[in-house]
């Protein structure tokens, strides 16, 4: 057991590259405390999204260990890993990844539904989070009717709907102009500070750096101080 909300120990990932294999993560160690915001930057293809894949329990590492909320995950069955994701992990995506047939409010209600929470309480919380992300007035709009910035704010609100222990954001400001990027970065920082969520942001954009507790760079499979 450990006090870190998220801990990666000796995480090693190789991927096929033609006839050979390429090392994407070479024994990565990382620990995030509750409420801490860590930003990882790196060149395109350096393995930033892959890092989130393993940190978010979306894949099982062949070597190394991932601990979420202090508990090791290596021995978990697929069903238990899914439950751990549902309980502790939320993701914010580069392109928001909103479901086209759901309104902004329903994107959040879906998270509650997946967690087995229904009814007025879920709807109230969804409205509160949309208000906090400054998109309450767009609650009934479908994604096709939202601007890029609005979509990303709904994406962040959706991630917070799960009351996660760990929030992982994959290039959350990449497709936005500087003003919108700064706003999304502020929103993520507020999630970390106000809700105590351990937040790991991977980005090649500078916007999230202004709020980071730590800045790391992923280079040649290793995390180094930025």
């Amino acid at each position, binding site marked *: 057991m450990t006090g870190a909300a998220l801990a990666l120990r000796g995480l090693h990932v190789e*991927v*096929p590259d033609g006839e050979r294999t390429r090392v994407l993560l070479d024994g990565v160690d990382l620990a995030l405390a509750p409420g801490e915001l860590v930003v990882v930057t790196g060149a395109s293809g350096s393995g930033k*999204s*892959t890092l*989130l*894949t393993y940190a*978010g329990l*979306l*894949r099982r590492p062949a070597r190394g260990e991932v601990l979420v909320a202090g508990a090791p995950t290596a021995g978990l069955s697929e*069903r238990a890993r*899914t*439950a751990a*994701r*549902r*309980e502790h*992990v*939320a*993701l914010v*995506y*580069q392109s928001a*990844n909103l*479901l*086209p*047939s*759901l309104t902004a409010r*329903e994107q959040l*209600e*879906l*998270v509650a*539904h*997946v*967690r087995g929470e229904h009814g007025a309480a879920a709807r109230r919380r969804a409205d509160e989070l949309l208000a906090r992300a400054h998109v309450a007035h767009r609650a009934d709009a*479908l994604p096709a009717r939202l601007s890029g910035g609005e979509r990303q704010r709904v994406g962040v609100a959706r991630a917070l709907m*799960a009351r996660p222990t760990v929030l992982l954001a*994959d290039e959350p400001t990449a497709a936005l102009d500087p003003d919108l990027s700064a706003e999304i970065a502020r929103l993520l920082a507020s999630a970390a500070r106000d809700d105590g969520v351990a937040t790991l942001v991977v980005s090649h954009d500078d916007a999230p750096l202004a709020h980071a507790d730590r800045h790391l760079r992923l280079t040649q499979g290793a995390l180094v101080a930025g």
Partner: protein
Amino acid sequence: MFLALRDLRRGGRRFALIASVVALVAVLSTVLCGLADGLVRDGTSGLRALPITHLAFAPHSDAVFSRSTLDGRALAAWRARPGVQAAPLGVSFVNGAPVGGRRGEPSIDLALFGVRATDFLAAGDARRARELHGLVLARELRDDGVRYRIAGSDVVLPVLGFTYSGSYGHVPIAYTSLASWQRIAYGNDARGRYSAIALRLPRDAGTAAAAAGAGTELKTKAQAYDGSPGFTAETATMTLIRAFLLAISALVVGAFFTVLTVQRTRQIGLLKAMGASTAYVVRDGVAQMLVIVVLATVAGTAAGTAIVAALDGGPVPVALRPGGIAASAALLVAAGLAGSLVAFRRIARVEPAIALGVEA
């Protein structure tokens, strides 16, 4: 159902094509069901109308009247059993040409049933023909004052009356006395022969032993339908066509949902990434499929039922049997469900990492 219902409500056009195809299959399936039931009814209505529980045939005749010949010994053996009502029945197909002033009019094909006036088979208007040397025809052949010469014999029978007699092997039934039938079938050498014995058996009649004792092969009324000319081939053909339709429906629904699942791979990955179990995602997909297939089947079945109702009473033999139509619709839904299982198997294989665009 959270996502499935909203997807249906807001992406209705995407599902219109598959719903139309399923509805069309349901229309075809219902009309075929009506045709199959109509053919069965048309081919066996005469037997159905007989007030009997069983028929006894000569051994190995497979309920085909033309293969069966019995005589008074078999009848006496059946009549000797307590509680059994038995009557000789002669059945053959004949052609009757109008004679007298009606020359030049077309001849008619008849399934000629010969019965004794004193037996329980005789009832109502048909009794007169059984007592007299004449014909009682189906109501639809109503044409008073005609006499028919039965082809292949010199027997001329006047029409004595009309009744509902149904048809056998799609040929209208005409009743005559057993003596007239025997004269047509055997000439002057009938020796008391007839085709089969019509029976009313009490429930605990010990039927197998009785049939063996009488040297006969016993069939229930429903089993005797199999001997109706073309009955087995017709029902087998209709069953095969309906089975093909069900298979096509299963394939179409399966193919549609497979394509839909492939298109939604990233969406499924997203759901799994937020902690939805495979069972949750599959439940959502099955619910969506069921809503589409059930609604389309109900609409198609209603349209098919309307078509069958419109055809009823016309030259095409159709019948509306609610049980049969409901079973046909239920089978269609089951076929859709079976077909979509292939698609839902793919859902289990979708990795949550796809949500991040990481596929390697």
